[in-house]
């Protein structure tokens, strides 16, 4: 799985794609630009991916969030 974020005037999506095929798996509109790299971590065997959302330069909607998503358990 690969994650990538984006930002625009109306949305700031965080996407997940299948790493091998590029098939879109999931997306979440964070509301503002996702411009930095996400990170993964594990707590008690549960995995999370976390990313900052706040990019608002060049006319894009700004924000100030850090979002964390739990990855589905295997």
């Amino acid at each position, binding site marked *: 799985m690969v994650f990538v974020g984006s930002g625009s005037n109306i949305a700031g999506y965080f996407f997940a794609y299948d*790493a091998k095929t590029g098939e*879109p798996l999931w997306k979440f509109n964070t509301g503002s630009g996702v411009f930095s790299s996400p990170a993964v971590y*594990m707590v008690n065997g549960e995995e999370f991916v976390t990313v900052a959302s706040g990019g608002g330069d060049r006319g894009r909607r700004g924000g100030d969030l850090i979002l964390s998503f739990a990855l589905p358990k295997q």
Partner: protein
Amino acid sequence: MGYLYILNRETGQPVHSIKETPVPTETTRPGEHPWPTQPIPHKANGQPMSPVCPVFPVDIPSEQLATRKLVPHFTPVGPNQISAPGSGGGANYSPISYSPQTGLLYVAAIDSPQNSGRPARGYFSAFDPTTGELVWQRTFEGYRAGRLRRHGWRRGLCWQRQ
């Protein structure tokens, strides 16, 4: 400038060839001396690599085309041009990622042609470094960001490369 370069980390030599490729040199600016070639990375099969985002403008609204012209990559800057990837486009600024599991390199890029008259688009590509081939490419609305390759579902082993 829209391309992925794959180099031997010890010597800096390209894994597949980089060819100095002739580019346009006509310019209306007095005193300008455009460089006549630019280094374009090629694949193992000798063909040019696919760029990480368009290097010729795509999907330009007709209103823009009425007053400006589309120009090839590396055309010297002049009036009334629409060019790609644009100063705000290309593989700005995200690090690439690599997965030892898939063996692929992942590159995020922006399609934002100069004077396009339309919103920027994100491009996300997976390349096979052993051949230079583009394996898959997705587009999405909006700009780019950093990306992460997650490794090893079952073992929960995760890492991020800058």
